[in-house]
């Protein structure tokens, strides 16, 4: 009988252990909050990508075009030349002729300005 009692007590003990394993223990919210605070405070910061050079905004389309042509200075030169050609094409050079007249130079008519005189004078001497 003594052996039987010991056996039963052992079974009871195993039952108690199993019940203890299966019984979740209530953890107070305040305790869990403290543990989580520790966790977040101690959490390693993930490694970051190497920093970019300071404040280099992404180049826009216009900047890329300018760079392809040769930079802002070259673009400015091209713009000036283009604008001068445009002006000469539309404005007659009267101010230039009046300036030449002041210095005793021939002042052809601004209406007909022959850059290539032709052969008429040579033929007349013969």
């Amino acid at each position, binding site marked *: 009988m003594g052996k039987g009692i*010991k056996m039963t007590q052992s079974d009871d003990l195993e039952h108690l252990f199993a019940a203890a394993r299966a019984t*979740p223990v209530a953890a*107070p919210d305040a305790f869990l909050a403290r543990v989580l605070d*520790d*966790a977040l405070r*101690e959490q390693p910061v993930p490694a970051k990508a190497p920093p970019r050079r300071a404040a280099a905004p992404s180049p826009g389309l216009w900047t890329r075009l300018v760079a392809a042509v040769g930079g802002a200075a070259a673009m400015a030169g091209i713009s000036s030349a283009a604008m001068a050609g445009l002006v000469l094409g539309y404005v007659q050079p009267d101010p230039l002729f009046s300036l030449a007249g002041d210095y005793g130079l021939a002042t052809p008519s601004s209406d007909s300005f022959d850059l290539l005189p032709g052969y008429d004078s040579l033929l007349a001497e013969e």
Partner: protein
Amino acid sequence: MPRDTLSPLSDDALLVLYANGDREAARLLTGRLAPRVLAYAWRVLGDRAEAEDIAQEAMLRLWRIAPDWRGGGAQFPPGFSRGATNLAPDRLRRRQGRGADPLDEAPEAADGQPGALQAMIEADRMAALNMALAQLPERQRQAVVLRHIEGLSNPEIAEILSIGVEAVESLTARGKRALAAALAGRREELGYGEGD
């Protein structure tokens, strides 16, 4: 990362995610491990407030070793388990030195257990078990709790307690005999009738 995605992951995997900066992993690990550590400390110390302090310190050790943790299949990282078990007896000795009664409290079961009457019976049984555990010598109590409630193997317990496997077997055997003797007179009170 969303909770649903992380929930199936092992503690090891969550700890790696935690070390990589995942805040949801921190929340899940806290929910999984902190109650267990608290229950263990509570059973060893018998005092709720000190058990919370011990459990928090043990969890803090876990967070700090996380960057170096590479997994290994153990239920807890060894350093974490050893830390928890080593912290608790220090507190216990201080309490006993002050004359405090380690039987003043016992772990409370979480809500949601089936049946009010059955819940009361189980609560009485848990209280009786914890009172009997508190009467065991310190090393026997640790060995019995780790083996029979936490479910660790004898080699794991030997590592945690820094003793040999045979010493663990001896401690658990003597602890169980002492528990059985302590509970022998309360079988009917705890619902274990003569015919059981």
